[in-house]
Each structure stands twice: as structure tokens, then as C-alpha cells.
């Protein structure tokens, strides 16, 4: 009974996403990949925030709360259908072209990899240290108590190891599953976290398809699905892959806004950045970096671009305001990189970068972790160097650079022994940058020639 209930909950997440995308986007068309990738991604982020807001006003996740969300979603879908704003589903974004038939090879490999990840994930409860100590624990607390009044957990320093100040997206989504199932069964509940993890693949495919034909986009997505680091972290119940998944959406739509300046792109950039900030603490930094890049390009790009950047910050603040205010009083008794990075420690510890940056570079060449991903991205960037003339590519490079720099600085101020910390955390942290790395690889590839062929018509057709 628990599994069907959990699947129903995932269906509700998909419906929420579909309704939101229909509301946001004016084209009224959606491809199957957008439906199964973008829809659930937007739906999951929205559901996490809705459950958080409901909890803040005193309603812990429950079947009643989920039923209300379901009824409101169906009502909005009906209204949009009446107004003919409901997105229609197209199986294909563009015509099937010569060579696309080979798509079945990467598609089958990708599906096999993802099925394997899901099966392995569901075959055990939470066993990863961070999964039960941080994310699973919070999910239990949130399923058990509403945030008003604040549960004792959030101020109990004997539970400091569970990072009392960490954002609550993944715990709320898991608590929603517990509510749907009527039991705190963490083994079945892992379906939610593994669902968020594997969503990274269609999200990345979506971003790649913006510039690449089907086959190269599918091949790069398969490379992602087959990465050893994916098998290591997908389905364990941590928040790193959900962060990467939301981050993929945020940088894709930031790049598209910079390129095309269409409001739906900006709205999705805001939403995904807000989801990123509500998923992990480093997500706040990433969301602000997205805003800084939009602002930087906005200052160049005329009034619309400037207004867009201002709207981004306003939107981000509006969506995450409740979290920022509520979490302000939480104890920061474990690590607290935020305060350290804003202190003079950053300057005094700069020499440590001499040790950190080479270690990060070496990590990217670890075949057993990354395959040839980073090397391939570098080669494609060299071959498709002309893409650097495009502002959105420059923006993505800047975002990746800032991302890596922020992690290097975080390592520099850590209180842990670096020689012990880096080997056990670096693959997990660099996993967050994978969407940017793959987009760079793909979008540069589009300039090399192999992946070219995206015409204006294709761009129009891929307009979501």
C-alpha cells in the first residue's frame, strides 16, 4: 500500500509542475521530455515550498494537506483548460531527422542505468551517514510536527551533528511522501529522493537540446547517467543530486534569458534558483551567483536585461523570504561556512588555495569517479571555442568559475583537516557543478559542427 501511495504523491508533484508550466509559459506546447523532466522538477520544488509554507502556518504534511494541494491544482488545470492555456503535449520537439534512429542506443543505456539506480536505492533503507543523520532525520521531524511552534529539534544542540540550519526542500518532499503513505517507511520513501536524483538526466538533456541535435544530446545525457559518481550518490537519500538537478534548471534558464530575454525563461530561472537555495546552504550562494551574472550581463544588455536582473533578485527574495526569515534564528553550531566565508578568515587562509586547487584539478581527472567527463568538456571547449563569443556561454563559464571558486574558498576556511576532508567530500561537491560542465561541453559541441543543425525554426520549436 505504501508504494502506490508514494507513486500517487509523485503523480501529484508532476501535476503541480504541469499546472505551473502551463501558467508560466505562453507557447502552450510541451514536449514529452519537458513533461517528464521539467514538469516534475518544477513540481517538486513547488511542492517542497508549499509543504514548508503550510507547516509554517501550523499544518504538518498530511493527506489532508496533500488533498488540498491536489484539489487546487486540478481546479487551476480546469480553469486553464477553459481559457485554452493548458500546455499540449507533443511527442517530438522537432521532426525526426536522419541519424536520429540511433537515439535508441543511448536511450536504452540511459534507461537501464536509471532503472538500476532506482532498484538499488529501493532495496535498502537509509544507510548513508548524511542521509539518515541529516536529511532523513529532518524528514521525520517535519512529518511529525509542524514548524509552528518551532519543534524542539531545531534548537537542540545535542542534535547539532544533523546541521540544524540546513534548508528543508528534500526533508519536506520526503515528509510529504510519509504523509501520503501514512507511515515513516524510509525504504519506500527513498523513491522520492531517487526520483529527484534521476531527474537530473532529463533536465540536462533538455538543456543540451537547446543547442544540440537529438543524438549528441542523448549521448551526453547517457554519459551523465553512466558516471560512476552518479551511481555512488544517486538514491542514497542525500540532497546533492537534487541540488544539481535544480541547479541545472537555474543555469539553463539564466543562459536562455541572457540569450533571448523572454519572460518565461526568467520566471523559471527565478523558480529554480529559489529551489536551489532551499535545498542546501551552498544553494543560496549559487542562486546569488546566478543573480550576479544576470546583473552583470544586464548592465551591458539594455533596459530589459537590467529590469530582468532586478526582477530576478526580487523574485528570489519573495519566494525564499519565509525560509530566510524563519531560519535566521537557527543555531549554527556545525561548520557554518556562511559566517566563515564572510569573515577575515577568507583572506588569512588564501594560501591554502595552493593545496586545494591542485587537489580539485586532480579530482576532475579521476577516471573511476568522472570517467572522461571533465577532459571531454575541455576538449569540446577547445574545439568549439567560437562559442565563447556568445554571451550565454560566457555567462556559463563565469558561473562555473564562481562555483568552483566558492567551493575552493569553503575548503580554505574549514576547521577540518583538509587532507582528510577533501578526499571524502570533493566528488560530492564537484557533482554540483556537473550540469554546468555538461552544458558547456554540449553547447561548445554545437559550435564544432557535429552537433550543429539547430536552425531558427528548431529554436522556435524548442521554445520552452
Amino acid at each position: 500500500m505504501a508504494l502506490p501511495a508514494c507513486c500517487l504523491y509523485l503523480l501529484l508533484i508532476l501535476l503541480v509542475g504541469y499546472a505551473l508550466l502551463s501558467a508560466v509559459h505562453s507557447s502552450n506546447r510541451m514536449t514529452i521530455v519537458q513533461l517528464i523532466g521539467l514538469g516534475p522538477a518544477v513540481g517538486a520544488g513547488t511542492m517542497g515550498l508549499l509543504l514548508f509554507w503550510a507547516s509554517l502556518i501550523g499544518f504538518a504534511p498530511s493527506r489532508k494537506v496533500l488533498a488540498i494541494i491536489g484539489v487546487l491544482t486540478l481546479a487551476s488545470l480546469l480553469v486553464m483548460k477553459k481559457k485554452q492555456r493548458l500546455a499540449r503535449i507533443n511527442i517530438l520537439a522537432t521532426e525526426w531527422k536522419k541519424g536520429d534512429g540511433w537515439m535508441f542506443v543511448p536511450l536504452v543505456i540511459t534507461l537501464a542505468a536509471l532503472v538500476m539506480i532506482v532498484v538499488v536505492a529501493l532495496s535498502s533503507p537509509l544507510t548513508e551517514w548524511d542521509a539518515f543523520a541529516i536529511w532523513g532525520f529532518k524528514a521525520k521531524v517535519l512529518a511529525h510536527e509542524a514548524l509552528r511552534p518551532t519543534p524542539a529539534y531545531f534548537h537542540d544542540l545535542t542534535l547539532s551533528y544533523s546541521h540544524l540550519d540546513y534548508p528543508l526542500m528534500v526533508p519536506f518532499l520526503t515528509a510529504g511522501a510519509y504523509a501520503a503513505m501514512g507511515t515513516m517507511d524510509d525504504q519506500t520513501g527513498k523513491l522520492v529522493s531517487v526520483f529527484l536524483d534521476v531527474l537530473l538526466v532529463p533536465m540536462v538533456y533538455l538543456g543540451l537540446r537547446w543547442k544540440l541535435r537529438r543524438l549528441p544530446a542523448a549521448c551526453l545525457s547517457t554519459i551523465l547517467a553512466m558516471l560512476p559518481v552518479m551511481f555512488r550518490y544517486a538514491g542514497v537519500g542525500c540532497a546533492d543530486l537534487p541540488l544539481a538537478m535544480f541547479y541545472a534548471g537555474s543555469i539553463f534558464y539564466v543562459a536562455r534569458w541572457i540569450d533571448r530575454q523572454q519572460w518565461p525563461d526568467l520566471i523559471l530561472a527565478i523558480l529554480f534558483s529559489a529551489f536551489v537555495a532551499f535545498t542546501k546552504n551552498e544553494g543560496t550562494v549559487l542562486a546569488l551567483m546566478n543573480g550576479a551574472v544576470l546583473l552583470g550581463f544586464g548592465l551591458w544588455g539594455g533596459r530589459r536585461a537590467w529590469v530582468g536582473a532586478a526582477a530576478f533578485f526580487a523574485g528570489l527574495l519573495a519566494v525564499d523570504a519565509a525560509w530566510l526569515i524563519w531560519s535566521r534564528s537557527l543555531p549554527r553550531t556545525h561548520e557554518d561556512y556562511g559566517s566563515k566565508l564572510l569573515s577575515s578568515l577568507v583572506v588569512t587562509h588564501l594560501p591554502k588555495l595552493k593545496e586545494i586547487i591542485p587537489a580539485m584539478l586532480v579530482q576532475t581527472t579521476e577516471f573511476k569517479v568522472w570517467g572522461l567527463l571533465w577532459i571531454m568538456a575541455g576538449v569540446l571547449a577547445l574545439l568549439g571555442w567560437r562559442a565563447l563569443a556568445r554571451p550565454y556561454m560566457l555567462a556559463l563559464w563565469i558561473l562555473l568559475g564562481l562555483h568552483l571558486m566558492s567551493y575552493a574558498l569553503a575548503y580554505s576556511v574549514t576547521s577540518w583537516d583538509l587532507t582528510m576532508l577533501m578526499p571524502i567530500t570533493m566528488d560530492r561537491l564537484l557533482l554540483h557543478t556537473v550540469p554546468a560542465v555538461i552544458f558547456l561541453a554540449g553547447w561548445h559541441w554545437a559550435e564544432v559542427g557535429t552537433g550543429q543543425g539547430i536552425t531558427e525554426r528548431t529554436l522556435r520549436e524548442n521554445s520552452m
Partner: protein
Amino acid sequence: MTEHEQSDRIAWQATDGNVLLRLAGYAKTNPVVANSLGYFYFQTSYALYPRRLYAAPADQVINDGQDIMRIGFSPDPQWLQAHDVRSVLIFGKDNPGEETPRLEILQPRDGRAGMQTNNSGGN
């Protein structure tokens, strides 16, 4: 038995009330066990929730097993009663041959929990 199965079993055995974590023998001081102590505390706290595994007063920071060792929590019976502690989970061994970790259910005194234990010693 895996560590999480062990914690699940403890959560099932400690049917009522909260649990006190007590260190015994080498576990009080030997830094070698800090890692496994930390894992055990996190895992069992997770398994027990919404019941609690107490290893320190709520204003003491626990980020790892070493913190638990440093604090060396030894509450009095009034504290145990006030916090509805009905069993003690002993990590480490006072005597060779003892099982670790092991759960001891506290005997109710005057119809109230958390006042007396069959276990001798303590830290």
C-alpha cells in the same frame, strides 16, 4: 547484523519513553571508538525518533563521537524522570564478555519511570 538493523532493533526493544546513552569502559576515553560511537548515536537517534536518545543536556553541542565522550553525561534520577527516560543504552563494556551495545530497561519506582536501573556502575 548491520548497524542500522542494530539501531532498529534497539528502537523496537525500547518500547516506551526515551533512552539514555551511557558509555562504559574503554568507550569513555578511547578515541578509537569515537567514530563508531558517533555513527551509532546518529543512527539510533534517527531510529528512535520521535523518542530521544539522550547523550547530553540540550545546550551541549554534539557534532561527533568525541563530543559525547568529552561531555560524559551522567544525569541524576530527577533528570531522567523529567525527561521520561525509561531505558539505558550502554555503549562499551564495563567487564569482559559483556555485549555492546546493550539496552537495559529501567525499573519504574513509585509508578514512575526513569528512577532506578538494574545496572550497576555508571559513569
